[in-house]
């Protein structure tokens, strides 16, 4: 059952991610990215991260992607136009990226053999209670710094996007 769920949602994630890259229209890319995030939320659940699965759906698929779709609609962004672009980048970059993914997969396989497995339910420490306890004890300082960061981001976004008033 674990294997079926993992394979199903991993395949959805990879197909949607490929779609993000190959689609020429930004809105299609955005919808595919929502698909990637939704299937990743299911994989988080399989890994026992209940809180983060919920946060992934609410924050990423909900808030951030809505922001993206807003901006795409606001700018009326059309399909990408290719002009004067050589295929050199594709010929050089494609094999390099394939090499990167092979290297990374070889690396993780070298360090984690097939005997280290994930079984649903064997890690219980990912609920809101555990995350909250760690967040407000050991990670209190990063948490507070994060709040200042968000404040700076809000002010920065308002300053950048407002109309000039004379």
């Amino acid at each position, binding site marked *: *059952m*674990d*294997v079926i769920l*993992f394979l199903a949602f*991993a395949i959805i*994630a*990879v197909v949607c*991610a*490929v779609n*993000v*890259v190959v689609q020429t229209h930004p809105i299609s*890319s*955005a919808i595919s*990215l929502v698909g990637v995030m939704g299937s*990743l939320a299911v*994989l*988080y659940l*399989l*890994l*026992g*991260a209940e*809180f*983060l699965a919920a*946060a*992934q759906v609410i*924050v*990423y698929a909900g*808030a*951030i992607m809505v922001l*993206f779709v807003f*901006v795409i609609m*606001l*700018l009326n*962004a059309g399909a*990408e136009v290719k002009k004067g672009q050589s295929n050199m980048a594709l010929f050089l970059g494609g094999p390099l*990226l394939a090499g*990167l*993914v092979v290297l990374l*997969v070889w690396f*993780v*396989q070298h360090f*984690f053999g097939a005997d*280290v*497995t*994930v079984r649903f339910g064997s*890690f219980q*420490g*990912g609920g809101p209670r555990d*995350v909250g306890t*760690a967040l407000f004890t050991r990670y209190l300082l*990063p948490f507070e710094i994060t709040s200042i*960061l*968000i404040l*700076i*981001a809000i002010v*920065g*976004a*308002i300053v*950048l*996007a407002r109309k000039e008033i004379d």
Partner: protein
Amino acid sequence: MGAVPIFWYLSLSAVLFTLGVAGFVFRRNIITVFMSIELMLNAVNLSFITFSYRWKQVDGHLLAFFVMVVAAAEAAVGLAIILTVYKNRQTLNIDEIDTLKN
């Protein structure tokens, strides 16, 4: 059968990260480039949570949580910058935004 080897999760993370890099390098639309960055952040989050499972510690979850928060802040500021660039240049093509080159 019934249990998934942990390197499957890490390999999925590697594949998603590489697709994000591909989108970042090959695409010319500034919004799609930005979405590729989000894809890379998501891939890294999957790695964090897998490592958290491996060592039965909640720390990886918190790192993923902070990545999420920073991604939200980054999206807000980045999209505001995209709006400003579009207002000044009327283009979203990153090849035409090359003031620093000249």
